[in-house]
């Protein structure tokens, strides 16, 4: 009995000691700015490394590592190194939520980047907002993501702007009067399809059919056969690389002969271009990576990423890379505390990034930059045009 009592006492004392040590460590760090200044700055990151979007997860993880390496090689943040705290969300919102909680409460990150899709990023965004830790969504495009408050930003175009840009290409560059829409049935595809249709119809165009499919669909012959009979001028297909490649292949096999317009979702060098092969030639997309850009940031990124990954970068990689560069820019100029980082991002003007010149961020945290139009030629994305029209590229601020 006595022995058991002393054992419990020992455990109690030990755990109290540990608790005190824990508090001491945390408190001490805050009180000694000189020591803290040399500690690495932690930036949180999550991406779908496993699950159905693992290919994108792989691209963005490489880009995040490349960005952190680059920041550290070029002097860090005023002498402090940056450390990446990365997690896999398996493309599941519930995972993204627990990751966001871990990042904001346990890991002590000063900012975070989402390298994931719309539904996961949307679930995580309010947690960063409440914790007052700035987060930048690399390429998730659902409008609601940034609507929660000040701390959530977006590095690529909001879906409504990109959908509109697609319709602008359809009307002004391709002179299309009728369109068949074929979209992936989720936040991404629906947002783009709706905003495309709204702008296209407002300019007098006609949507002759709308079909949707899951992101694992492979068989498009039935629906393409139907569309063939409708003879539209254009097929708008907001979807991802796996499904996009099958649409390209099967449209070619069916001798469809209809111009196709895609989005950043098929801006994938590995999955889209390789699988669709020659059948992708002539497909036009709206995206944010202009491979032939004269900007040093773009060319350097393409060179470094290709050397590291052994394949050309895609749009998700470029967007993720830029998130870190924007955070670094803000921290170097404004300080590395969450509030200062947030304020710093709002102050960014005409910043040269891999995805083009960032004109700035509006009060919702939406980026303003030119929309790139690329065309597949000989198995590569090449320049087709650039949308600079303020009416199209200015994101909504409400």
């Amino acid at each position, binding site marked *: 009995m006595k022995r058991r009592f002393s054992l419990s006492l020992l455990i109690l004392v030990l755990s109290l000691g540990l608790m005190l040590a824990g508090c001491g460590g945390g408190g001490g760090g805050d009180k000694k700015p000189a020591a803290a200044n040399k500690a690495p700055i932690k930036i949180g990151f999550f991406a779908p*490394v*496993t*699950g*159905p979007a*693992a*290919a994108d*997860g*792989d691209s963005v993880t490489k880009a995040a590592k490349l960005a952190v390496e680059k920041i550290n090689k070029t002097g860090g943040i005023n002498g402090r190194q940056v450390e990446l705290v990365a997690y896999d969300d398996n493309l599941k919102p519930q995972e993204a939520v627990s990751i966001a909680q871990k990042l904001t409460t346990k890991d002590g990150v000063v900012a975070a980047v989402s390298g994931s899709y719309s539904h996961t990023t949307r679930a995580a965004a309010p947690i960063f907002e409440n914790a007052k830790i700035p987060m930048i969504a690399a390429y998730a495009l659902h409008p609601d993501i940034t609507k929660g408050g000040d701390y959530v930003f977006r590095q690529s175009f909001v879906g409504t702007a990109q959908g509109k840009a697609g319709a602008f290409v359809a009307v002004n560059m391709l002179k299309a009067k009728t369109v068949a829409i074929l979209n992936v*049935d989720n936040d991404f595809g629906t947002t783009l399809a709706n905003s495309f249709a709204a702008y296209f119809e407002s300019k007098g165009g006609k949507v002759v*059919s*709308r*079909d*949707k*499919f*899951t992101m*694992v*669909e*492979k*068989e498009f*012959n*039935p*629906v393409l*056969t*139907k569309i*063939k*009979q409708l003879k539209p001028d254009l097929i708008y297909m907001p979807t991802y*690389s*796996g499904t996009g*490649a*099958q649409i390209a*292949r099967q449209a070619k*096999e*069916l*001798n469809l002969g209809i111009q196709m317009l895609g989005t950043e979702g098929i801006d994938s060098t*590995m*999955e889209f271009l*390789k*699988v669709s*092969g020659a059948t992708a030639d002539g497909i036009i997309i709206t995206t944010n990576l202009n491979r032939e850009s004269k900007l040093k940031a773009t060319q350097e990124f393409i060179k470094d990423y290709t050397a590291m990954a052994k394949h050309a970068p895609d749009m998700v990689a470029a967007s993720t890379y830029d998130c870190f560069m924007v955070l670094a820019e803000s921290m170097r100029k404004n300080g590395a505390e969450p509030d200062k980082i947030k304020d710093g991002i709002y102050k960014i003007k005409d910043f040269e990034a891999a995805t083009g010149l960032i004109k700035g961020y509006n009060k919702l945290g939406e980026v303003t930059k030119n929309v790139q139009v690329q065309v597949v030629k000989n198995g590569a994305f090449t320049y087709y045009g650039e949308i600079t029209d303020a009416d199209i590229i200015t994101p909504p601020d409400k």
Partner: protein
Amino acid sequence: MLVQQIINGIVVGSVYALTAMGATLVYGIMRILDISNAGAYAIGAYVAFFFLLQTGSPLVALVAGVVLTAAFGFLVQKFLYAPLMNKSPNVSLIAGIGLFIFLQDFLRLVGGPQARELNFGTLLPSIQFPSLQLTLYGTWFLILAATAVLLLILWLLLNRSPIGLAWRATAQDLETAKAMGINTNRVVAFNFILGYGFAAVAGILVGILYNSVYPTMGDVPAYKMLAVIVLGGLGNPLGTVLAALVIGMAETLIGGYIGFFLPRDAIAFVVLILILLWRPQGLLGRRRTS
């Protein structure tokens, strides 16, 4: 357009028939819904992919994919299902799901997360009939021929051979078959070898059809295969073929005439529910008499 859509439907249905056949065989004898069969579908495609990459020979790739996956089926039966044989079927079901998830991540780690091209070259050229607005893919003939030949062999095996007799006896009552001197262990092992071989053929053909293999390619077959098996009347090979064609045709015709107002898989399950309301025992299932 109707002809084109009917052909589309037959091809889609044949793919489903091939895909679901492996699991039907296993269910027929073991009364286990073997989800890991969908893993074998992906394994077969990946083995073929690696051999194609190494040797450049489509024939070597095809044979290696089927043989190695069949051998894998033998191992799965011996080391996963056999020890669980006397436990509740739920245990086997969960073990199978576990293996399926493991296989998916294994393929991702070994083969990378991206979809890779399974390029067998142009095996058969496509044929166009411009006046009829009809296109027949070369790969379609391959799939239809493979399905027809394999199903014929299976039918002969089941109905016209001693193995088939032992097989049917084991399927009816494993214990009695054993008492009658049938080596049921061997029957079960052969069943898995064949079931996984079928899955591999399906995976490889689908890989060729869509020119891609990827780690999660077994996801859709894993649940669609269940729909086909249930609709066919659980474990009845002929029912599986019929159900596969019904689902393939329904998806295609509804998708082609009304459009993908719902994603295609959802259409398949709506059809499944409607038919089961009418025939709860499945298309060719026997009504249970108590």
